[in-house]
């Protein structure tokens, strides 16, 4: 297994474990790129706290900063790390125990 795949997934899960960061990521996923001010208007968190979490998320590669209107920085969700994390969930969610039970039941009839 490539060594960095776990590091990428870990950053996603660490980000998602915090309710504030979960709220920021959810807002970017549902509403598209936004500035720290936009997010502070939509979430019950101070602008300073939002900025701190956005910096952390940008360092982890989960969001990217891009120039927005009136020279304000906008943040955009990066989907690639989420798709790596999704593979970790996929291996846990694949229910071969249940499927093989179903096969055995099917053949038993």
């Amino acid at each position, binding site marked *: *297994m*490539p060594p*960095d*795949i*776990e590091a990428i*997934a870990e950053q996603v899960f660490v980000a998602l474990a915090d309710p504030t960061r979960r709220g920021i990521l959810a807002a970017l996923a549902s509403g598209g*790129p936004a500035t720290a001010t936009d997010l502070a208007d939509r979430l019950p968190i101070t602008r300073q706290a939002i900025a701190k979490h956005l910096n952390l998320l940008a360092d982890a590669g989960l969001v990217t900063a891009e120039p927005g209107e009136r020279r304000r920085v906008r943040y*955009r969700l*990066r*989907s*690639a790390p989420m*798709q*790596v994390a*999704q*593979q*970790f*969930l*996929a*291996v846990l*969610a*694949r229910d*071969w*125990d249940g*499927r*093989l039970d*179903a*096969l*055995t*039941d*099917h*053949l*038993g009839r």
Partner: protein
Amino acid sequence: MGFPDRIERTVEIAHPPAKVWAALTTAGGLGTWFGDKGATIDLRPGGTAQMTWTSGDQADMRIERVEEPRVFGFTWHIYGLPADDSRRTYVEFTLEPVGAGTRLTVVESGFAQLPDDAHRKAYDGNTEGWASELGDLVDYLNAA
């Protein structure tokens, strides 16, 4: 210890390989114990199969190995990834006769793939492309 790239299970089934093979490789079999709303299958390497569920879910498989009645392998999409994602896992069933029954092993591998660079670039390019296309649309409407 890393996160698993593969899942492996073995079960002993009290039916001969020919019967297990039919359950794994026919529309009647797959559409009953696996997909609960039916299945289609074109049983040859390179052929496709599809299973559907009453929940509305659907799985599309590409058949890779058909060595009756010993080995049946297919690839399918990793659940939860976008439909155009190139990553797929490989599922292989191996049937061994044991007395009057069958030892059935299933191995699913490929969970720990990284998106390839070409794909990642294409994907990132796409999202940027979408934003700039919306910008182009605004320019077009402004000019009209």
